[in-house]
């Protein structure tokens, strides 16, 4: 028989190749993850900035695995809200033993799922502002919202929220959307905590200064460091990153007289975990001086112990005297209505 033309024909060769590569390529990617450990695996759902090599994840993993005879595995999801949604999608058959990275605002909603168990961790000795305490959710770090400004553009930063609201509308700010991001929601609560019923009017006034409202922190902060806007909604700890990693004092946080809104991050154990003892041990490990001293320069947040040696740059940050926080139950009950009010006040 003559040479089969189809085997060498370009069309069929490409199609065959296409099929082969198309079907096997993902396999190559998938199998990389499958080295079977013999040790018990502790699976932790967290947010994605926790897990990269510069984040706290790898160091905590190495530290805990050195003592636990277990394999710690992080699953990085977008943020706290995404973690909670993942749990809701999965229900009781979730693969998580622990979640790490919910904000305290989410606690009522998280408790509503009935998926969490008491931590059994003693948190009474911690130095969390507002003396936050919960027998299920263990606070492991916190941060204050703040407006961070470029000192080369702004020489007289606002000294209060009121100053910000009534300031020159030509000096623009970028904020995050309360519907899609944690800091955005935080600012909405901050305004509510200070102005209560008047919040809508103040938002309408503030909106004159708002250049744009971005879906998340990354976009807003990108606009800020890109020079498009001289002030951005971020955290009091943001300048520490620029001081330590970039050696510059150019970016500073504005101290507000009324106080700053507090974001506490918490971790908790799932009721359905088969490794309760290990999970409890990990939650307690989070609060050790070893882990807490990692927090400032990896997560760029503040530790929950007061006996941690802080880098010098942290001494030069805005020291918050009045922490502001609306209790999570009130937030949960009013979030929809307040978001609607915010939309109408700011909607242009």
């Amino acid at each position, binding site marked *: 028989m003559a040479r089969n*033309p*189809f085997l060498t*024909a*370009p*069309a*069929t060769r*490409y*199609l065959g190749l*296409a*099929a082969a*590569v*198309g079907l096997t*390529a*993902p*396999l*190559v*990617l*998938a199998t*990389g*993850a499958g080295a079977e450990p013999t040790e018990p695996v502790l699976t932790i759902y967290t947010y*994605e*900035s926790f*897990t*990269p090599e*510069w*984040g706290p994840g790898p160091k905590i993993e190495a530290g805990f695995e050195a003592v636990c005879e277990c394999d710690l595995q992080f*699953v*990085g999801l977008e943020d706290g809200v995404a973690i909670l*949604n993942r749990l809701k*999608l*999965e229900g009781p058959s979730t693969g998580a033993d622990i979640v790490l990275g919910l904000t305290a605002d989410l606690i009522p909603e998280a408790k509503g799922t009935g998926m969490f168990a008491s931590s059994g961790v003693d948190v009474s000795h911690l130095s969390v502002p507002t003396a936050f305490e919960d027998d299920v959710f263990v606070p492991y770090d916190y941060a204050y919202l703040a407006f961070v400004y470029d000192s080369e553009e702004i020489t007289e930063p606002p000294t209060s929220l009121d100053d910000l609201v009534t300031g020159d509308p030509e000096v623009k700010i970028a904020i995050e*959307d309360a*519907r*899609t991001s944690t800091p955005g929601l935080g600012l909405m609560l901050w305004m509510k905590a200070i102005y209560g019923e008047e919040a809508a009017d103040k938002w309408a006034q503030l909106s004159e200064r*708002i*250049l*744009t*409202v*971005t*879906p*998340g922190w*990354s*976009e807003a*902060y*990108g*606009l800020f*460091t*890109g*020079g*498009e*806007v001289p002030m951005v909604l971020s955290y009091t700890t*943001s300048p520490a*990153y*620029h001081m330590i990693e970039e050696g510059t004092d150019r970016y500073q946080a504005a101290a507000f007289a009324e106080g700053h809104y507090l974001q506490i991050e918490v971790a908790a154990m799932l009721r359905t975990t088969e490794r309760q003892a290990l999970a409890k041990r990990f939650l307690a490990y989070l609060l050790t001086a070893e882990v807490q001293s990692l927090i400032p320069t990896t997560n*760029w947040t503040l530790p929950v112990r007061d006996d941690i040696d802080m880098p010098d740059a942290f001494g030069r940050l805005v020291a918050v005297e009045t922490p502001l926080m609306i209790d999570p139950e009130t937030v949960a009950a009013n979030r*929809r209505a307040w978001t*609607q009010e915010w939309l109408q006040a*700011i*909607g*242009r």
Partner: protein
Amino acid sequence: MTAASDRAWRLGLGLAAAGALAAFLGGVFVIFLVVAGAAPDFRALASDRYLRGVVLFTLEQAVLSALLSVMGAVPLALALHRARFPGKRAVLRLFLLPQALPVLVGALAILTIWGRSGLVSDVLAAIGLARLDIYGLSGILVAHVFFNLPLAARLMIAGLDRVPAESWKLAGQLSLSPLVTFRLVEWPALRSALPAAASLIFMLCATSFTLVLVLGGGPGATTLEVAIYQSLRYDFDPGRAITLSLTQIGLTAIVLWFTTRLGGDVTAGFGLGGRARRYDRQSRGRVALDTLVLAVGISFILAPFVAVVVRGLEADLARLLADPAVHRAAGTSVVIAVASALLSMLVSLAIVLAMEALRATRGKGAPRGRDAMRKVLETTTSLVLVVPPIVVGAGWFLALRQVTDVFAAAPYVVVATNAAMAVPFVVRIVGPALAAANRATGRLADSLGLVGLSRLRFVDWPVLRGPVALGFAFALAISLGDLGAIALFGSQDLVTLPYLLLQRMGSYRTADAAGLALILGILCLSLMALAERGLAPKGNAA
């Protein structure tokens, strides 16, 4: 094998491919209904004032964006088609790059040019004028035109390329004035590409998310896609998310139907550019006008890329290039992009061949059913673009975890999603070429009794390989730039370049992110060049 069984075979494959596509995307609605018990509720939607505003704004900005992109593309396509200049091929290839740019990078790049402290504002300020303030509808339109005008231009150049060489020759011999040439030759060709371009851009803009929020200046600018994201994420209300998604799909279907009624082929498509030889009268005035159009058009499209390059070069590229995390991410990106481009190509080719098989019978008084079936195929491949990735991702996550380990399945879902997203583009690229070829050689092939694989090889493949190369390049670009699918399934073990870029951006490392954007762009251009060179017909290497 007979011609009839050949047709049946092509039809079967095409319908199977379209069915798989529809099942992959439409299946999520069934999954939500069955697994989560989430049923759509349109009555609640109709009575919600906020949502009515969102729907109106979605349509308004998408219609305007599509119109502006298409209107801007007409003079640019005409000038590009007439002009001969060094680097024309490179420019045409750069026109594909916006699809590969993660939207956030694109938005920041656009603002370096058009923002308050952007290049244009700086120039205006230097001559004593007010700085630009584009935030609002105008900002959204600038961004959408940047992303989509190049797309429209390539569709129209393809339309111009399908004008028979004799027409240009005749126009040259008759010394037709530019206006008459436009009316008699160019406009009919452009017109056939208009609905395809407009509908594609409409869909891309209707589902816009980050661009609309960042450049829209505030929540006054909200699209349905934002509302869908909000309902699934912050309110965790799958029922509402499905209702909104179905609304988005339904509205788009209506718009698609409307554009097909306007005439023209919705899937009339892209081309390779530069095939037709033209014999226009040389006129100083027109050369000047063309040069002006080209200068304005190309610099509008290229300026943000220049910004990406400049910012990227400021980053510590040496460190990034030596970073193992970057190597891993680049490797993952390439594997996923190549796999999904191949898969997309297989599905699209099957669909295109089936659509041709259905069309070929029309002349012989085929039953109306076939025509309807072709329309269904067309619509299925188009609507892919408006099924929200967050809904698809969540749906498949729900379904897969009933049967398997989701993280092991994640790469498959990412590849499948990326492949599906590229199908509407690839079909628009390959379809018209095959249709044109069939018109020219179909009867001859029929009378010679060429069927099956030999027909595919000797008749179809030589015509298709050029467009296939371009379609492949497009699919690569789309997959390389994708974040929608990967963000939902991403884990420590599945990190692509855009994902890494966003991760760095999300932890203060903006310079790294700028460097990664440059690396991603270069990677994309090289892959596209490789694909086009490898597949292009011999002697006509791209």
